[in-house]
């Protein structure tokens, strides 16, 4: 690692971050109401993607449980929203997701590769069906109304969750645990013999990543006003984070963020500008990106930069 370049870039980078922070922190003051709503939705996608990347990025375990954690947050919010204040509801949503992830993580320790992905996807569908059965047979209804909260509040809460997610992801990736997670992705057996408690580390990080998806779900539910098991546990939210992360490129920390932002914005464009051809265009973009941009957008960016800079950018 060439420390000199990193050091000289640091103030600039921090300055940029600070400016972005200011820009978004005051968005509800100068932006249109809808821009607040749209940015909330984009933030939600970033939270889901980054929280997915926290665990799946370094370890290579493709989790498809995001929709489950997100949905648990949504349902918690729908159940508790009328009785508890918002911060408690969100904490509850996050914690419930955390516990579910701990449980699932502990269960699936033996599963590798595609089996892990399938199990986590099965989880989403199973919860959906069980909850539906419960609602129909026990509560004799299907869905629930969620309390409505004003858009600016939702925005700030989502902003806070986003900040927490990115900071956590950043610090984990920079910490020794980040390195350990990466080693698990490279060779799980060797990591264990290097003294890493692989099972505990995996389970805890998996659960930590679920925390954020759950919190995002808890606040998003208030935007959706009405939810049912199919709305809350929509498998789409399992695939989206994966696609967004790959779209952005997993080689770099900021790749998933860029991927989520552009992907979400692109989708918004397509469903409003080309509603009748949204799927077709979207599918083609997806295939093209996977075929021609294996490193995602960030990979493309790096390819361009390689022309200018002779330096290696093999940062961890």
């Amino acid at each position, binding site marked *: 690692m060439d420390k000199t370049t990193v050091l000289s870039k640091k103030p600039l980078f921090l300055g940029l971050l600070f400016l972005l922070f200011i820009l978004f922190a005051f968005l509800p003051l100068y932006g249109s109401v809808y821009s607040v709503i749209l940015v909330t939705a984009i933030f939600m996608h970033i939270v889901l993607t980054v929280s997915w990347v926290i665990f799946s990025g370094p370890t290579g375990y493709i989790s498809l449980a995001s929709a489950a954690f997100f949905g648990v947050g949504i349902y918690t919010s729908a159940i508790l929203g009328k009785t508890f204040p918002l911060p408690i509801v969100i904490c509850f949503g996050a914690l419930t997701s955390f516990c579910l992830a701990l449980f699932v993580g502990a269960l699936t320790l033996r599963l590798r590769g595609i089996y892990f992905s399938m199990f986590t996807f099965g989880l989403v569908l199973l919860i959906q069906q069980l909850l539906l059965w419960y609602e129909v047979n026990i509560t004799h209804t299907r869905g629930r109304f969620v309390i409505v909260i004003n858009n600016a509040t939702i925005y700030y809460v989502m902003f806070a969750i986003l900040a927490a997610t990115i900071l956590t992801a950043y610090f984990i990736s920079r910490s020794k645990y980040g390195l350990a997670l990466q080693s698990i992705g490279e060779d799980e057996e060797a990591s264990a013999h290097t003294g890493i408690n*692989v099972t505990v580390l995996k389970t805890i990080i998996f659960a930590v990543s679920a925390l954020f998806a759950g919190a995002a779900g808890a606040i998003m539910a208030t935007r959706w006003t009405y939810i049912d098991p199919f709305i809350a546990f929509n498998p789409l939210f399992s695939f989206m984070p994966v696609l967004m992360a790959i779209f952005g490129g997993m080689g770099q920390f900021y790749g998933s963020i860029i991927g989520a932002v552009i992907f979400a914005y692109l989708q918004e464009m397509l469903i409003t500008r080309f509603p009748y051809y949204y799927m077709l265009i979207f599918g083609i973009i997806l295939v093209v990106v996977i075929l021609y941009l294996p490193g995602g957008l960030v990979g493309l960016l790096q390819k361009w930069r390689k022309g200018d800079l002779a330096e290696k950018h093999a940062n961890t």
Partner: protein
Amino acid sequence: MRILEGEGVTKYFGGLAAISNVGFHVDQGEIVGLIGPNGAGKTTLFNLISAALVLNSGVIKFKGEKISGLKPHQVCRAGVARTFQSVKIFGNIPVLGNVLLGSLFGTSTGMSSADAAREAMESLEFVGLSTMRATPAKDLTLANQKRLEVARALATQPDLLLIDELIAGLNPTETAQAMELVTRIRDRGITILMIEHVMKAIMSICDRIIVLHHGEKIAEGTPQEITASKTVVEVYLGDQAYAGS
């Protein structure tokens, strides 16, 4: 003093005994060689000691404490480090990071990150890789990857190092360097149990040799005794035609 001992160690794979009722010990400060034809169960025994596999019966003790039944990371932290037959390094992580993992996670007490970094650098210097610390491990030559594995193992501050085929696939110069590395490790006070196929190397370096065949211990003794042993020559050296590579 016996640093490692095993009694009645047995492991079945689907009804077949890969290791049956093997007793062995390693004394503090020794270099012990573990030899035997392919499929004799050498690596299986390593896997049992390092807890990659769970044994079916028997007991393995390290410094008098039972370690069989622990998890791999616990065995590592107790002071037993290992390398692998087919190199298992973390290819996309730089060399320093590979070793850092060992010093961060593998030591018995845990240490501050500054200490861990110092320890890692020290290990790298010891094996002679300090100049390549920023290179992704996958870009190293095979010989260097093997050294990296050793450095990573050393960074966990082990008392016992299990080395699985350090010199397979190396050229003569590299082989000599590797053998020299092993003696230097011993000189640091680390006990070594090593699997090796190249007879010349192992005979010259080991204090004692254990011979496995079909999962059973068939002989044990100094290199001279082993070379002289009729059983060994019969069952083992007979197979040497292909095992010398």
